């Protein structure tokens, strides 16, 4: 054992414990007597650059082969589901958007669709609101997949991919900021519609992006797809076939990479997805390589949907006509962020007392939702996002549960990692694209 600053060791009653923060694997394993210490238990995380957030993996190793892997989650549990029960239905979107922080608009969409189904107003959502939702969800899917490409590239040694992926994501975040006032945690989708209309400037940015990204995607493919190291790190690594996926409840790109074209946008459409032309990309290799190809193809399909959504975007109301549900304010982005538009403030404060009363009642009290329960599932970038919402007839949710794909998909790590090499645990875990904010909620 070297006395370098990277690795320190101490004796405990359970054996020798090393704290490793860098350096070479040889210097650690070299100091261990191979006859008396055949097994090593490695605690990877919860603070580790390649575990996508605060995921902890307890790995039992023989040499560099993983004999047992156990994921430990919960480090980012923030009680979102419990907190929802103490806020009104509209305020709920500001909480759920913070669950899976790389796909905030999907959390909002799932939650809003559940509330709308409870209210029985699913069919009353305006055409424009639905189109905006589809447009923004697909942009969000692209940004989420770009982050996947970026972080996975970094973890497998392609550092430049990390920079490129995050750079391209900035374009999308700019579009979101232009429209909702926020780069992340938008609370842009509300039960009944969307918070405000898309400005012309954002539409122009989206059009520019549609020209910009395909060129860049070709570059990334040229950079990664033909590269020997990328092949070696991804092909035949962390294989999980359809049977394994279904048993473990794995959905999304991982399932599609194993050959099953299961995409809720096609199989159980919502928000008008049945009106868009797009394909469901699949692969048959069921490994990290297949998941990479499926995600790249999905970015292209999402671009197709974005383009169609822009064409379908006709002027019209963005909120449901029922004024007992529709958020009374007309929001606008001001110098200090998003808030009530000046016209709306002028109206309720200076012109119409009834408008003021209505605004006050709906904002402080909220609307009532008839008792019952619903389950709504949408196709999240990582798989099926299900929202189970229960109402007792009051102004607050009685119970909301989010079936987050990251949480369910992480169960696949032992199946993919055991018997494989330590380095492949990183590739396999990254290919699941777990986001701990969504996993732990």
């Amino acid at each position, binding site marked *: 054992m070297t006395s370098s600053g990277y690795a320190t060791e101490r004796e405990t009653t359970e054996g020798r414990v090393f704290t490793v923060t860098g350096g070479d694997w040889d210097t650690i394993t070299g100091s261990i007597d191979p006859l008396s210490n055949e097994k090593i238990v490695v605690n990877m995380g919860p603070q580790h650059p390649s575990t996508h957030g605060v995921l902890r993996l307890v790995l039992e190793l023989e040499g560099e082969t993983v004999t047992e892997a156990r994921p430990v*989650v*919960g480090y980012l*549990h923030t*009680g979102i*589901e*419990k*907190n929802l029960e*103490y*806020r*009104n239905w509209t305020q709920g979107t500001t909480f759920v958007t913070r669950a899976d922080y790389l796909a905030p608009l999907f959390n909002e969409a799932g939650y809003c669709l559940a509330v709308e*189904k*409870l209210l*029985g107003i699913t069919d009353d959502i305006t055409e424009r609101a639905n189109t905006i939702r589809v447009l923004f969800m697909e942009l969000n899917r692209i940004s989420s997949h770009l982050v996947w490409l970026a972080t996975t590239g970094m973890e497998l040694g392609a550092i430049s991919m990390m920079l490129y992926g995050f750079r391209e994501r900035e374009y999308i975040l700019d579009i979101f900021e232009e429209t909702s006032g926020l780069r992340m945690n938008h609370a842009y989708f509300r039960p009944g519609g969307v918070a405000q209309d898309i400005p012309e400037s954002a539409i122009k940015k989206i059009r520019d992006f549609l020209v910009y990204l395909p060129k860049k995607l070709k570059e990334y493919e040229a950079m990664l797809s033909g590269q020997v190291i990328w092949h070696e790190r991804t092909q035949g690594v962390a294989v999980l076939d359809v049977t394994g996926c*279904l*048993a*473990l*409840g*794995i959905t999304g790109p991982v399932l599609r990479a194993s050959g*099953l*074209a299961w*995409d809720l946008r*096609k*199989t*159980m*459409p919502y928000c008008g*997805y*049945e009106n868009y032309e797009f*394909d*469901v*990309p*699949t692969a048959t290799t069921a490994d990290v390589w297949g998941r990479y190809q499926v995600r790249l193809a999905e970015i292209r399909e999402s671009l197709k949907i974005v383009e169609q959504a822009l064409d379908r975007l006709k002027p019209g109301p963005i909120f449901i006509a029922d004024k007992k549900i529709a958020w009374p304010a007309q929001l606008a982005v001001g110098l200090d962020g998003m808030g009530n538009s000046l016209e709306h403030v002028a109206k309720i404060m200076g012109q119409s007392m009834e408008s003021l009363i209505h605004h006050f009642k709906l904002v402080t*009290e*909220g609307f009532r939702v*008839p*008792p*019952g*329960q*619903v*389950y709504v*599932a949408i196709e999240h970038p990582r798989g*099926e996002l*299900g929202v*189970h919402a*229960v*109402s*007792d*007839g*009051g*102004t*607050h949710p*009685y*119970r909301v*549960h989010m*079936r987050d794909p990251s*949480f*369910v998909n*992480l*169960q696949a790590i032992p199946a993919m990692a055991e018997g494989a090499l330590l380095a492949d645990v990183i590739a396999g875990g990254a290919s699941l694209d777990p986001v701990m904010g969504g996993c*732990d*909620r």
Partner: protein
Amino acid sequence: MSIEPNKSETSADPVGAELGAPAQTPASPAKGMFGITGSGDVSGFGGLVRRQPETGGSPKPYGGYFDEVTDALEEAYPGFADAIEKVVVDRGELTLHIQPEKIAEVAQIMRDDESLRFELCSSVSGVDYLGSDARRLHVVYHLTSMTYRRRVRLEAAVPADGSLPSVTSIYPTADWQERETYDMFGVIFTGHPNLTRVLMPDDWEGFPQRKDYPLGGVPVEYKGAEIPPPDQRRVYQ
């Protein structure tokens, strides 16, 4: 590769959707609007009485694919009459209320019978119906049939210290989801390989998602006024 959008009759709105009652109605305050009692009420809102909806089962036919599912289950499962407490159709969703000790048997048939084929267990979670049901903890399973593109909800109610069989041997994906339900509600799943906490710390006491577990929080002072924590604020009911 592309697949066709779902155009089969199974995606059409079930005709029985309007007939049903809510699956279960949580306890709600019977009277009043603001959660305040003992003060002089001049608004009249304090006298509002909330009507409790029916919580019985739905009448046949259920509509849509729901009849096919229940008929197929009845045919394949001899203990149908004992195991199924009631069938509820509400908002276009089918809920089968199951005797908790029979849940694993029913899940097995739901997965394996060729006219049911619910291959995917989408979600397992809990709901605490404190005050409205003696068996207050409901475990809710959402099953998905990819073959027929159908969904169904199974619901099993147990008392606060109750237990029910685990479905992990049928749906391995239920492993962590049952752990989460145990973690948050304290429901014991017998036969689960490793029923420990998953989101909360191992040494945590209490079950946070139960209705009698406080949210917690501290009062916040803003510009001289003190705002109580969220669970102690006045609420509209």
